[in-house]
């Protein structure tokens, strides 16, 4: 089956690992991912003030495109994209002013026939028809863990992984509607479904430092350290993320963490889709492990996980 998929700009350039592993994993579940035509960056941040309505134009444009292509669901793996798309979708549904102004912006964005210079398609207001789902939700609710379990090709033997939710996946809870912000289960259930052991640790929704790693690196380094340390203290062999920014802070900047906090020996960082792909039998070369700063290959060595079926 075909499923609309919004990768987000970062996945196509800096964190292709998240993109490739997602595609390969979904192939194994007989799902073909289709990107909406002409998609652009979603804007990364949902505008928090009433004045910055223009920030909604890009995400709504993407969603409308999904609708035009006949899709009623779009799935994404990046937490930031997920937050922007989902919240923008809700804003269009609930705020008449935003609905009016964004649809007015988009009205000008209709394709024009190159030869006749006439507008070729009619414009219908976008009213929030498309449902935005994170891949974790999609796997839990629409694919279902039993189906995933039936397709597993490798037994991960309870590999202890610390699920890292970060901030955007769960908060604000009434808009994201993904899970309970202080006692979530969705990521843990996913890890158990693919054969890992979900490690419980208190920093799973604490901030990694986010974009402050650029403007105030010291603050972000400390925030990342606290997350990594907590995961390690609770005996995780790796920490799994759903966001390129978390990956950047926890993996790329782990060197900086180690230099500042000498007691921290290190911890590999993975994308949750890499675990999914690996468990479903995807080849190690297709997991994008070369992009990691902290070597994670060891976790995927053949003798770490037994083949379940050929």
């Amino acid at each position, binding site marked *: 089956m075909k499923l609309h998929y919004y990768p*987000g*700009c*970062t996945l196509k*350039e*800096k*964190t292709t690992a998240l993109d490739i592993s997602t595609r390969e994993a979904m192939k194994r579940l007989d799902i073909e991912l289709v990107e909406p035509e002409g998609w652009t*960056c979603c*804007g*990364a*941040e949902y*505008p*928090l*003030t*009433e*004045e*910055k309505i223009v*920030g909604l134009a890009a995400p709504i444009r993407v969603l409308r495109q999904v609708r035009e292509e006949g899709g009623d669901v779009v799935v994404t793996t*990046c937490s*930031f994209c997920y937050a922007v798309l989902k919240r923008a979708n809700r804003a269009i549904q609930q705020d008449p002013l935003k609905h009016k102004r964004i649809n007015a912006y988009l009205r000008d964005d209709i394709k024009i026939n190159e030869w006749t210079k006439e507008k070729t398609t009619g414009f219908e207001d976008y009213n929030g028809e498309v449902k935005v789902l994170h891949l974790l939700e999609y796997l839990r609710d629409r694919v279902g863990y039993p189906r995933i379990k039936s397709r597993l090709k490798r037994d991960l033997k309870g590999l202890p992984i610390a699920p890292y939710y970060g*901030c955007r996946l*769960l*908060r*604000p*809870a009434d808009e994201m509607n993904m899970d309970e*912000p*202080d006692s979530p289960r969705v990521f843990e259930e996913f890890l158990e479904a693919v054969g890992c052991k979900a490690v419980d640790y208190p920093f799973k*929704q*604490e*901030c990694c*430092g*986010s*974009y*402050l*790693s*650029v*403007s*105030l690196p010291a*603050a972000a380094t400390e*925030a990342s350290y606290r997350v990594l340390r907590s995961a390690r203290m609770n005996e995780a062999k790796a920490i799994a993320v759903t966001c*390129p*920014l978390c990956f*950047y802070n926890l993996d*790329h900047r782990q060197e900086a963490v180690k230099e500042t906090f000498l007691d921290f020996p290190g911890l590999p960082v993975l994308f949750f889709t890499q675990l999914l792909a690996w468990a479903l039998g995807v080849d190690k070369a297709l997991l994008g492990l070369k992009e990691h700063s902290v070597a994670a290959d060891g976790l995927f060595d053949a003798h770490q996980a037994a083949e379940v079926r050929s």
Partner: protein
Amino acid sequence: MRVKLKAGPDEREFIKRIEELSGENVYACYQCGRCSAGCPMASEMDLLPNQIIRLVQMGLAEDVIRSKTLFLCASCFTCQSRCPKGIDLARVMEAIRLILDPKGKDAYGPDEISPELARELPQQVMVSIFRKFAK
């Protein structure tokens, strides 16, 4: 020096503007301090998150605008998720940043990023930080 508290047109205008931009009722805050207690960046801040909203309540725009705190907010929404009155403090922070002097020294725009760093940074980070802090 004693701070003269006024409820004059300037103060009211400031508070009203913040409330309009953020969509939050700043008077709902009863200063419990939970936002500050859970904020991951609070230890770096000069004014704690609850103090920021307190100063807004009191109409003391000058003190708020000069604070480093506004550029330490990571928009992680921990404050919002724990606030017993349901106030989204991240929105209030963003509203205050909007009415700041555009050339404020803490702003962070493309000029602040070196070419080497730009090559390394994921797009997501750059777009985020420009959206939040650039003017």
